[in-house]
């Protein structure tokens, strides 16, 4: 009897040796004359357990991890294909608390299916959303997405349905759907996981968007730092096209949608939507002034829907199961789920998809288990390099867009980077300015010049040169950047800088009593 063994092909699993583990399993099985079928699935997102090997059994999949190639012989020795006795055995995968306590909607298939198998995708609710969409009018599709309460998952949290409605209503015979897959923020990997581990979901979401707004062409703008995601997308696009899910006549409906993955070239600012459009047009990624909104004048001057990977990936399920299903999860104006990403110095790093509502502390400790180093958590940067550093006193903030905004922080895309108590927050603030100087597109002065001056001012503060004056200057500079920058690059760099200064003044050499004064 053939026994199926799953070894992930997700790039984090590969980075931890999954390729050699898979090879070792194949050769050891052959040597022992065992009939083993190795399937390369995506990752479950329990990254401290990667490479996580699973064995299919009548009771469901049994997990072993983290497995190295050197462990493979002993796994066979312990008859891991049939017996859950090896020291690395974690029991049934679905029963691992970290996974069991999640509410996986967007990531329901991730880690379960072979990402490049359209048959696997179809067997797990794949393309039900598109089939539903094909029986609806564009206005009905847009209404369902609006009713679901879905907000842009790239960080800005703008209601997706409203954006679609604008494009649907815009005049023009050529419209575009662009997926922003320039996931450049440190601490984020959910976009990458969707592209590598369930690419058909993104393709389906974009196809629905195209039909919904009347666009017959789409682009996915993927970072050059994500070679595995780019390859997986190209493979999946070719399969979807060959099987009639993309092309001139989608599933015989007479509707057309063509999709192409485009590789970025390492400019962080191209994650800003108008800079991304410039880049797709073959230009330097320089931010455009808004208005006009890209929904009216976007790619090649045409009405364009621009959504993040996770927003588009949420769409198939919303169409398949209805708006209410999605809207019923969450809290306040934050509806549905967010795939949080636990990153940095964290014990149990990985992907945690849950509905909005719990606290940051629950994520950090109940899921994350504290730091990797075993020291205390001192600061958490939420929402990427342009997000605020949050101190312990803010850990009870509810995971909700508005609750984070109320404490001067950003929930953004739900990426969390944890730092232990060895971190120097003045250094982190300096890095934020340095990064802005490096990545600024140069179009507006507050960002281009402000970031360079910001590094210098922080250096003077740390060196103790006229510290009170320089602190005043830094605040004034941040105010100018916040209010005067063209986009979030310069406009939000003050978030990490000022949060570090406000919550951790001692790292800047400012006495704590002076802070109170």
């Amino acid at each position, binding site marked *: 009897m053939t026994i199926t063994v799953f070894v992930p092909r997700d*790039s*984090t699993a*590969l*980075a*931890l040796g999954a390729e050699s583990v898979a090879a070792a399993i194949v050769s050891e099985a052959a040597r022992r004359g065992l009939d083993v079928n190795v399937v390369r699935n995506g990752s479950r997102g329990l*990254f*401290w357990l*990667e490479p996580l090997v699973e064995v299919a059994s009548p009771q469901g999949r049994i997990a072993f991890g983290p497995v190295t190639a050197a462990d493979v012989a002993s796994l066979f020795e312990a008859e891991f294909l049939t017996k859950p006795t090896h020291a690395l055995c974690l029991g049934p995968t679905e029963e691992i608390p970290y996974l069991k306590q999640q509410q996986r909607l967007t990531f329901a298939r991730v880690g379960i299916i072979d990402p490049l198998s359209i048959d696997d995708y179809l067997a797990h609710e794949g393309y039900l959303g598109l089939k539903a969409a094909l029986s609806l009018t564009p206005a009905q599709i847009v209404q369902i997405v609006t009713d679901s309460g879905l907000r842009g998952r790239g960080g800005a949290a703008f209601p997706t349905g409203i954006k679609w409605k604008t494009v649907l209503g815009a005049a023009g015979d050529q419209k575009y759907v662009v997926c922003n897959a320039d*996931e*450049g*923020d*440190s*601490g*984020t*990997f959910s976009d*990458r996981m969707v592209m590598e581990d369930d690419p058909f979901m993104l393709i389906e979401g974009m196809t629905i968007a195209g039909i919904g707004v009347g666009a017959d062409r789409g682009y996915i703008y993927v*970072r*050059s*730092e*994500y*070679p*595995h995601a780019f390859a997986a997308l190209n493979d999946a696009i070719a399969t979807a096209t060959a099987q009639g899910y993309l092309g001139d006549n989608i599933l015989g409906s007479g509707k057309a949608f063509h999709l192409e993955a*485009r*590789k*970025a*070239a*390492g*400019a*962080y600012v191209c994650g800003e939507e108008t800079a991304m459009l410039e*880049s*797709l*047009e*073959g*230009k*330097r*990624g320089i931010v455009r002034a808004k208005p006009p909104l890209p929904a009216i004048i976007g790619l*090649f001057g045409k009405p364009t829907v621009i959504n993040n990977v996770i927003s588009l990936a949420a769409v198939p399920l919303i169409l398949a199961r209805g708006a209410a299903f999605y809207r019923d999860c969450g809290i306040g104006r934050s509806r549905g789920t967010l795939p949080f*990403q*636990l*990153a*940095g*110095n*964290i014990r149990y*790093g*990985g992907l945690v998809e849950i509905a909005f509502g719990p606290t940051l502390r629950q994520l950090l400790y109940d899921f994350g288990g504290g730091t*990797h180093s075993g020291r205390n958590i001192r600061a958490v*940067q939420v929402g990427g*390099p342009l997000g605020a550093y949050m101190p312990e006193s803010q850990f009870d903030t509810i995971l909700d867009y508005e609750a984070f905004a109320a404490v001067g922080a950003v929930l953004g895309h739900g*990426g969390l*980077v*944890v*730092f*232990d108590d060895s*971190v120097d927050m003045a250094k*982190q603030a300096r*890095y934020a300015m340095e*990064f802005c100087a490096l*990545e600024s597109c140069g179009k507006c002065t507050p960002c281009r010049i402000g970031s360079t001056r910001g590094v210098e001012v922080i250096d003077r503060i740390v060196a103790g040169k006229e510290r009170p004056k320089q602190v005043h200057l830094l605040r004034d500079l941040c105010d100018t950047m916040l209010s005067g920058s063209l986009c979030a690059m310069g406009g939000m760099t003050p978030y990490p800088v000022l949060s570090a200064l406000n919550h951790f003044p001692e790292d800047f050499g400012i006495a704590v009593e002076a802070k109170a004064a």
Partner: protein
Amino acid sequence: MAEASGIETIKAVVEAKKSLPGALLPILHDIQDALGHVPSEAVPVIAAALNLSRAEVHGVISYYHHFRQHPAGHHVLRVCRAEACQSLGSEALADHAKATLGCDFHETTADGSFTLEPAYCLGQCACGPAMLIDDSEVHARLTPEKFDAIVAAKRGAE
């Protein structure tokens, strides 16, 4: 790698891709993938085919961190120095890499084996510090020892 066939490769890439909407980045990627960098002789060829000025083409090449105008070493090591990797000691790892290789970021080792580049996030943020080799091979949870072993293995394979 480039040499005599370089200009022919450039012409072939330009011919194959010039009719794509927004063709410049796809063309530059293909040239760099084939030749290891985008040589200056590519600029007039691309400019003519896309009806751009040479300054515009040069502007794009020099704007993006990914494109290089000069050949790199045999292997390009991109060490992540973004926040998540910083929280797990990527700065010390970068210092170790520079000391071991004897070159700074954006430089190539004396023997031409390695070019060291910084990366700003490789999406391995739960398992830092991370490194990407030759835009294809990812490594996570790096330590100085693991870094040395990887470098030694690459040297041995040559």
